[in-house]
C-alpha cells in the first residue's frame, strides 16, 4: 500500500516536490487499485504474512478504492498550491515540518480507509488526527491554537469512544478483523455489550465527522487553520469519518442490526435535517467567509447522513456520490479562499468588496463552487442532490425531500451574500488594488472546478463506481 511513503526527513526546499511526488504516486496507485477492484473484486493484503483473522489485513473493496481515490486526488491537487500558500502563512523554518505533518495526516487517512482491522482503524485515526491538531495550530491567528486545542479534546474523546467500542466488540467475539467481526457479531447481537459497543462507536465516529450536535469543533478549526490545511481537511477528514460510519454500520454490524434493531434511521434523518437547517442558517450570519463555508460543510454532512439513513441502495449511492462531489467543491472553494488570503491577508466578508473585478478567476471559482453547493444543474452538486431526492421519493419520504429543497434555498442565501459583496460593490476607497492570484493557485483551483463541471455533466464514471460500491455493501450485509 501507499501508506509508508511518508518517511521523509530531508531538510531542504525539495521537500515540497517530494511530497507532491509521493502524493501523486499515491493517486496513481489508487487509480490503478480502483480499476483492478472494479474488474476483479476484492484485493486483500496480509501485513507481515500473517493470515487474515490473526494478522492485520489490508482489504480494498470498491468502497475503499473509491475513497482512496478521492483522498489522494484531493491531496495531490491541494499540494500543488501548498508551496505558494504557506510562504505567506507559515514561517520558513517550519515548512519542512508542515510537509511532514501533512504527509503523516495523509498516511493516516489512507490507512483508515484501506485497513481491514478494527484496532488498526483507531491507530491510523490517531495518526491522522494528531497531525491534524498540529497542522491547525500552525495557523497565524492565535485563535488557531485555541481551535486546535478544542479539536484535540473533542477528537480524543471521539477516538477513545471508538477504542472502547472496539474493545467491547473484541470482548464479545475475540476478533478484530472486520470481515470476521461481521460474521461473528450476529450470534451475539442481542446482548447488551454489543449494543453498548455500537453506541460508543457511532458516537465516536459522529464526533469525528461533525454531525450536527457534535460539530462545535469544526468551524473554528477550519477557519483559523492555514488555508491549505483547510482545503485538505474540508475535503477529506470528514469523508474518512463518514467512510468509517458506513463501514461499521453496513459491514461490521450489518444492515439489519444497525437499521432495524436500533432506531438509527430516524436518528440520522432527524440529526441530518436539523444539521442542514441550523448550520445553513448559522452560515448566513457569519462575517468570516471561511466560517461561512465551514458551517456549510456541516450542512453538507447533513445531506450525506440523510442519504445514509434511507438505508437503500439508491440512498447509499447518493451518499457516496455526494461524498465525492462535496470533496471536489469544498476543496476548490477553500483553495480559492486560500488564494484570497494570499493576496489580501484575511477573508473577512467586508474586505471582499469589489473583488470580483480584481481577482476575476478566483472569484469565478468561488461562484461556481457555491452554485455547486446549492445544486444548480450542470454542476456536481445537482447530480448528487438529484439522486438523493430520487432515493427519498422512492422511499416515500416526500416531506424530507421538500425540507432538503428548502435547505438548498438557505445555501442560495449565503452564497449570494458573497457574490453580492464581491461583484456589486465598489472596492473600498483607499484600499490597495489586489492582483489576480498566482498561477500556482489558479491551476489547482481550476482543475477542481473543471472536475466539478465535468462530473456534473458526465456522471457515468462517478455514478458507476458509487453504485457498484453501494451494491457491494448490500451484498456483504444480508
Amino acid at each position, binding site marked *: 500500500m501507499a501508506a509508508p511513503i511518508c518517511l521523509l526527513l530531508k531538510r531542504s526546499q525539495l521537500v515540497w516536490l517530494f511530497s507532491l511526488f509521493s502524493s501523486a504516486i499515491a493517486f496513481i496507485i489508487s487509480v490503478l487499485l480502483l480499476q483492478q477492484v472494479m474488474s476483479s473484486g476484492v484485493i486483500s493484503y496480509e501485513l507481515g504474512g500473517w493470515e487474515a483473522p490473526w494478522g492485520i489485513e489490508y482489504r480494498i473493496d470498491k468502497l475503499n478504492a473509491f475513497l482512496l481515490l478521492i483522498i489522494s486526488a484531493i491531496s495531490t491537487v491541494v499540494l500543488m498550491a501548498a508551496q505558494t500558500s504557506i510562504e505567506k502563512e507559515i514561517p520558513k523554518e517550519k515548512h519542512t515540518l508542515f510537509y511532514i505533518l501533512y504527509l503523516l495526516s495523509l498516511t493516516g487517512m489512507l490507512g483508515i480507509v484501506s485497513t481491514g482491522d478494527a*484496532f488498526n482503524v*483507531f*491507530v491510523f485515526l*490517531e495518526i491522522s488526527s*494528531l497531525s491534524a*491538531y*498540529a497542522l491547525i*495550530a500552525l495557523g497565524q491567528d*492565535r*485563535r488557531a*491554537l*485555541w481551535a*486546535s*486545542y478544542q479539536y*484535540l*479534546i473533542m477528537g*480524543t*474523546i471521539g477516538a*477513545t469512544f471508538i*477504542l*472502547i467500542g472496539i*474493545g467491547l466488540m*473484541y*470482548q464479545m467475539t475475540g476478533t*478484530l478483523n472486520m470481515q470476521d467481526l461481521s460474521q461473528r457479531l450476529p450470534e451475539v447481537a442481542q446482548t447488551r455489550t454489543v449494543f453498548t459497543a455500537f453506541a460508543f462507536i457511532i458516537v465516536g465516529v459522529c464526533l469525528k465527522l461533525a454531525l450536527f450536535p457534535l460539530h462545535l469543533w469544526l468551524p473554528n478549526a477550519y477557519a483559523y487553520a492555514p488555508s491549505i490545511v483547510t482545503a485538505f481537511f474540508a475535503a477529506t477528514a470528514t469523508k474518512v469519518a463518514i467512510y468509517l460510519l458506513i463501514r461499521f454500520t453496513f459491514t461490521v454490524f450489518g444492515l439489519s442490526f444497525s437499521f432495524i434493531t436500533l432506531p438509527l434511521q430516524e436518528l440520522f434523518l432527524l440529526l441530518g435535517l436539523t444539521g442542514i437547517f441550523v448550520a445553513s442558517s448559522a452560515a448566513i450570519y457569519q*462575517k468570516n467567509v471561511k466560517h461561512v463555508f465551514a458551517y456549510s460543510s456541516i450542512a453538507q454532512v447533513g445531506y450525506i447522513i440523510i442519504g445514509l439513513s434511507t438505508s437503500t441502495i439508491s440512498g447509499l449511492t447518493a451518499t457516496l456520490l455526494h461524498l465525492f462531489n462535496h470533496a471536489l467543491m469544498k476543496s476548490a472553494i477553500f483553495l480559492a479562499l486560500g488564494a484570497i488570503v494570499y493576496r489580501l491577508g484575511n477573508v*473577512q466578508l*467586508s*474586505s471582499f468588496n469589489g473583488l470580483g473585478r480584481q481577482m476575476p478567476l478566483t472569484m469565478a471559482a468561488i461562484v461556481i463552487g457555491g452554485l455547486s453547493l446549492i445544486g444548480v444543474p450542470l454542476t456536481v452538486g445537482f447530480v448528487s442532490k438529484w439522486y438523493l431526492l430520487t432515493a427519498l421519493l422512492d422511499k416515500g419520504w416526500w416531506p424530507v425531500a421538500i425540507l432538503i429543497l428548502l435547505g438548498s434555498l438557505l445555501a442560495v442565501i449565503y452564497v449570494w451574500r458573497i457574490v453580492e459583496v464581491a461583484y456589486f460593490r465598489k472596492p*473600498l*476607497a*483607499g*484600499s490597495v488594488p489586489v492582483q489576480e492570484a498566482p498561477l500556482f493557485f489558479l491551476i489547482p483551483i481550476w482543475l477542481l472546478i473543471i472536475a466539478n463541471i465535468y462530473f456534473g455533466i458526465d456522471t457515468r464514471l462517478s455514478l458507476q463506481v458509487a453504485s457498484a460500491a453501494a451494491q457491494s455493501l448490500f451484498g456483504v450485509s444480508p
Partner: protein
Amino acid sequence: MIIGHFNDWIVVVLMMIGLYIVIAHGNLIKKIVGLAIFQTSVFILYISMAKVEGGSAPILAEGITQFSNPLPHVLILTAIVVGVATTALGLALVVRINEAYGSIEEEDIQHLDNQTQDETQIQATEGDQS
C-alpha cells in the same frame, strides 16, 4: 455482583471522573489531566478483560499451561503510546496558548477572543464608512 465486576466498576468510575473533568473544568491543564484519566480507564478495561484467572504471562516454559490473552495487552501498549502523544501535544498547545493569551483559563481566553472579534468588526465598519 459488585465484587465480581470490581475492575469494571473502577473503569466506569474513572471514566466518568475523567469525562467530568474534561467537561466541567475551565483550566486547560486540568482538562488534559481529565483526558488522561479517561484514556487510562479504557486501558484498564482492555487489560482486565484479557486477564485469565490464575493465568501467567504467555511465555513458553515448563509448568505454564494457562496464560492471559496477550493480544489486548499489546493493543493497549499501542494505545498508551497514542495517549502519551496526545497528552504531549495537548500540553505543547497549552504552552503556546499561554504565550499567546497570557492565560490558561477557558473563560479568559474566550473573553479575549470576543474582544478581538469586536475589534475586527469595528475596523470593518469603519472601513465601510471611509
